[in-house]
């Protein structure tokens, strides 16, 4: 059996490992257009500010691939999938497959702006190659402008603020981190980021850039303001990378459509996993792109197992994310932007700590925790296991612990059912 995987991040690597678990014989090949063995993309901002070394960004030790007989072909940009001959084309080479997994991830979404495209100092913030370029360009004289105050933009800004003279962030929404924070909590986070040297221009956009040859020197905002700019980071957002799937006429609707349980696409020999796919949120049944690491690993693991003929299925998909900015910790899970009368909030604020629990009927369906994420995984398990809050013993608004559960449940969790 020939297994081929396109993409070498969370989902692609998980698929390769999973295939190997169920099939020790077949050939497993990962194709990546990047020049590196699988590495941690979320670590790029830490690399930028010097907190991690490049060698520590590797997701697995180099020996791992040899030990597990997994071939990784770097610098291999796939340009086409031929479903009839079951081959993919990368440059002049073609690779045959019996089972194919698309783990192509996301691509940056860059809105049209006048005079920005093709400029040497306008870069996205998604991969190691781009960050290496940014690291070379940025210095103590650099005036950086980041477009987008989402997770990627803010991580870029955090990394740059240590190096650059100034960092301005331009965001269309009226608040920072609009996808994970409500109005109240985003005010707190914005202040913390401002205290650490980031300047915001909210409800604003970059309309055009002023340039000298290939170099942008300033940007003009919607409200007419002009910002001097030596480095422009394009971090408005990402969208699923579906180009190959579309060209191969697989079913695509925003993301690649797969069977929710098996990750099989509309072609029975092709699977897909991670940010490039449409996921079904188990908490409200909605179809969405869940571009988060744990989801990608889960889907990759299932896709790999299914490709190798094993009977593993996706248990349930939901969003969970943890991130920190200058020591401020944000942890979110579930339906944090739920709208409708069936949802109610419990909000608890105490100094720098902010806790928002989102409930539906007798269940927890989401949370936002700022500076109070102690044991947050217990909340996550209440959400993912759909535990009725009526069965709990403690106060759910306190820091969660094993004592939220009754004695039998506590013992099962701690002993795994073992009698001692």
């Amino acid at each position, binding site marked *: 059996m020939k297994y081929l995987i396109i993409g070498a991040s969370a989902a692609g690597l998980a698929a390769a490992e999973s295939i190997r678990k169920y099939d020790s014989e077949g050939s497993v090949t990962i194709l990546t257009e990047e020049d590196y063995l699988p590495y941690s993309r979320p670590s790029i901002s830490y690399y930028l500010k010097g907190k991690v070394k490049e060698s520590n960004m590797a997701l697995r030790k180099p020996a791992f691939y040899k030990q597990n007989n997994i071939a990784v072909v770097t610098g291999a940009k796939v340009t086409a999938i031929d479903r009839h001959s079951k081959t993919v084309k990368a440059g002049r080479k073609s690779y045959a497959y019996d089972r194919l997994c698309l783990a192509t991830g996301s691509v940056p979404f860059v809105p049209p702006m006048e005079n920005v495209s093709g400029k040497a100092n306008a870069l996205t913030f998604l991969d190691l190659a781009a960050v290496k370029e940014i690291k070379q360009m940025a210095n103590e004289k650099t005036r950086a402008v980041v477009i987008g105050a989402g997770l990627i933009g803010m991580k870029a800004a955090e990394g740059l603020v240590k190096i650059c003279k100034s960092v301005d962030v331009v965001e269309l929404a009226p608040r920072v981190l609009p996808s994970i924070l409500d109005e109240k909590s985003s005010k707190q986070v914005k202040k913390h980021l401002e205290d650490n040297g980031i300047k915001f221009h909210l409800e604003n956009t970059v309309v055009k850039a002023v340039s000298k040859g290939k170099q942008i020197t300033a940007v003009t905002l919607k409200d007419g303001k002009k910002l001097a700019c030596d480095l422009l980071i394009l971090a408005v957002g990402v969208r699923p990378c579906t180009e190959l799937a579309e060209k191969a006429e697989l079913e695509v609707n925003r993301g690649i459509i797969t069977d929710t349980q098996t990750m099989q696409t509309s072609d029975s020999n092709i699977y897909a996993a991670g940010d490039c796919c449409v996921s079904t949120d188990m908490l409200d049944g909605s179809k969405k792109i869940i571009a988060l690491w*744990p989801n990608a690993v889960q889907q990759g693991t299932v896709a790999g197992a299914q490709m190798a003929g094993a009977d593993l299925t996706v248990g349930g998909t939901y969003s969970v994310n943890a991130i920190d900015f200058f020591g401020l910790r944000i942890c979110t899970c579930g339906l944090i932007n739920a709208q409708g009368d069936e949802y109610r909030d419990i909000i608890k604020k105490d100094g720098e700590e902010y806790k928002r629990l989102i409930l539906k009927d007798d269940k927890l369906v989401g949370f936002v925790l700022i500076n109070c*994420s102690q*044991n947050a995984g217990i909340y996550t398990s209440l959400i993912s296991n759909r535990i009725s809050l009526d069965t709990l013993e403690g106060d759910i608004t306190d820091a969660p612990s094993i004592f939220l559960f009754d004695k039998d449940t506590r013992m099962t969790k701690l002993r795994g059912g073992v009698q001692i």
Partner: protein
Amino acid sequence: MKKVFAREELCINCRLCEVYCKTNHSKSKDVIKAYKSENPAPVSRIAVYGDKVASVAVNCRHCDDPACVNACITGAMTKDKKTGIVSVNEDKCIGCMTCLAVCPVGCIKQGNIAFKCDLCGGEEPACVKNCPNRALLWLEAGGVKS
């Protein structure tokens, strides 16, 4: 593999397990220094929850299919194939705490990076050795049937 098992009915909430865990994970291995002077301060990887009526020590279950390993965004959290111990590579961890966000028993401690029970490397752990009333046992994961 051998793991630490807690007996809630014997725990008296003395929290000595925390003291000895913290000390064993300090540079000096000295209780006073671990608590009073070491910088960065060492972190206890076990914690006692509850009150005087009922309490129990919680540390890592070293799960067969660990949620923390699957969720780790840097490859820092791994489960050793031979020993079964789940541990953090401190050079790779960036302290994002995604592991903490998915651990269903609540055993990951937050610092500048993630801290968790490493079973003291595989010898009888300090918490078990120093539990005064045998509320913590060091047993094969299959346990001893009572």
